[in-house]
């Protein structure tokens, strides 16, 4: 069987998703047997940033213009391109900065801001078309394995398209929102983690980002009824995916989104 040419590119993020590739040791040997690593800076010297690639995985959000330039050129050289992890999929934690005026933000961190050329944080699909999303913070193992196996077998990957609530019910967890009055993001957050936080007695904080057609506004109003302040509700919807319209709608009534 012909090996797939793999490229992994990192933009603004913690690099945890690239490490996650190595954490998934149960499947790592089988996956890598079918891949030819053309570019993976964290694991391998040499390698060229030019294609052609079969599969490109992109971690991190776009926060600088030259990242977007490179991304667009990579898109032309690969058959498939998928964002991995919340930063690449949804803007992630780096998108929290979008709610502060750039100048003020830069001045809080650097004395001399002249070498800084940061821009509004955006996910990968703001600049190029993508062939699916490997969600999670860090990206989920099931999603990655499903994607790579599907591509190897020439079929469309089956992604999870329902809320964390479904996983919670399947696990038989007590609802932390209803029973404990906690601001749980489960009803609007895409499944894939296995309802991790509620299973550890805490409300979901939405790190996988919104599921399709999530009604974040209704959930935000529910939080308001439950007695949470505007600032708290704003924080809740801007932690991992405020660059995505679904979560923005939850935050908009409660603070300055941009």
């Amino acid at each position: 069987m012909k090996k797939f040419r793999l490229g992994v590119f990192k933009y603004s993020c913690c690099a945890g998703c690239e490490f996650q590739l190595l954490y998934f040791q149960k499947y790592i040997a089988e996956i890598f047997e079918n891949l030819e690593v053309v570019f993976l800076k964290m694991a391998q010297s040499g390698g060229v940033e030019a294609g052609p690639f079969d599969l490109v995985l992109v971690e991190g959000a776009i926060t600088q213009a030259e990242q977007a330039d490179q991304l667009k050129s990579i898109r032309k050289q690969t058959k498939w391109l998928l964002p991995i992890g919340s930063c690449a999929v949804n803007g992630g934690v780096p998108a929290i900065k979008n709610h502060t005026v750039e100048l003020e933000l830069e001045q809080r961190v650097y004395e001399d801001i002249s070498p800084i050329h940061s821009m509004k944080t955006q996910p990968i699909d703001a600049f190029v078309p993508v062939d699916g999303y490997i969600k999670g913070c860090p990206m989920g193992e099931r999603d990655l394995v499903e994607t790579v196996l599907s591509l190897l077998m020439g079929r469309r990957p089956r992604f999870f398209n329902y809320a964390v609530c479904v996983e919670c019910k399947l696990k038989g967890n007590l609802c932390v929102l209803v029973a404990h009055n906690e601001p749980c993001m489960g009803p609007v957050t895409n499944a894939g983690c296995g309802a991790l936080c509620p299973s550890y007695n805490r409300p979901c904080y939405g790190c996988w980002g919104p599921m399709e057609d999530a009604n974040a506004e209704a959930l935000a109003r529910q939080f308001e009824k439950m007695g949470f302040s505007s600032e708290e509700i704003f924080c809740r919807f801007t932690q991992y995916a405020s660059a995505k319209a679904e979560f923005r709608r939850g935050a908009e009534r409660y603070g300055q989104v941009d």
Partner: protein
Amino acid sequence: MRNAMGKWISPQNIRVDYLSRVEGETSIVVKVDTQGVEDIRLKIFEPPRFFEGFLVGRKFDEVGDIVSRICGICPISHMTTALQAVEDAMEIIASPQTKALRRLMCVAQMVASHIVHLYMLALPDYFGYPGFLPMMPEFKEETADFLKMKAAVNKIGDVIGGRALHPISMVVGGFTKVPTQKDLDDLATDIEHALPPARRTVDLISGLSFPDLASDTEYMAIRKDGEFAINDGHIVSSKGLDLEIRHYSSYFHEKQESYAMAKKTYTREGLPLMVGALARMNLKFDQYHSKTRALAPEIDLSLPDTNPFHNLLAQALEIYDGMLECFQILTSLNLEKERPSFKVREGEGTAVTEAPRGLLMHHYAVNRKGFIEKANLVTPTSHNFANMEEDLRLLAGRYHGDSGSELRLKCEQLVRAYDPCFSCSVH
């Protein structure tokens, strides 16, 4: 032109545009001309994400989860340090059980981080491979050891933290869920089985041939009585410093360079310093487990060890020592059900911990409603930044007779030996 030893010097221009096998993005520039070393720059071009800027206005109970995302290899350190700094600000005292579990999580992460660094990032240089993946078919026992150790320590993060990367059970005041006795027993069994691979790792690393280099830098670590300090203690140094953690900002200062997105940290005297496994070995060797100390004669260890390349050796010893420590904690814990409970109050707090790469400092001011008003973070790679350049200067001076490709490899090896994390350093 010849140098003092009569060796011919020719101008060298070493440029590594995007250094591979390190966490984050940097370039190395080394210029040696006939007069000696002319220019050394570690151009850290990792894009800033402005954590210190956007943490302002966020709620205290989000901080641990947010700062975890600074780094994909030491998230538990950022999380723990932030939780401790917020607790310091709000005058919350963590229970002994919480402290023990945090220590276990941090030691397990330190071992995991060192394992990834040694096997995946550093080792290929010493065997002439571009990466560890192509080494795997040739190095079957090493690969099996690597995977076995990694699985054992990751499982600690998985079971106790909910997930090894960006764990979710660690919150202000404690843990949302504590493991069962069976969990602890299972984890201890896995760690016990990972001890022989850890022992072999020490042999593997001590058998490598390292370039020769001696630095006169100041080594720094945190130290306390009775145990190998990880999450609390005093800041001590090889030049006699003994500083309380709350006085951190009066002693250290950060300097911005035009060519790097990370800042350099210096001591009050304006001198560079070194933190991390080698610093800890030099300052706290006496607090390793006795089984670890017993390895010293076998690997010809002599202290203080001032060769920065030996940071790899110190990491190997910490893998073994960390496994022993995890086993000891896992087999002595007597867990009770606890739920975090505290009152929100205003204040400022600081915490300094030993992350895998060395001293990590978080400082926050929290207002009376529990929102962050000020955040300052200084990471291990920021503490080491100036010293990495100093050591590159020493190295280029010491080995300027090498061919371009030999010197280039040594420069890369040196930077990797520090196990830098550029994502952390810029944050």
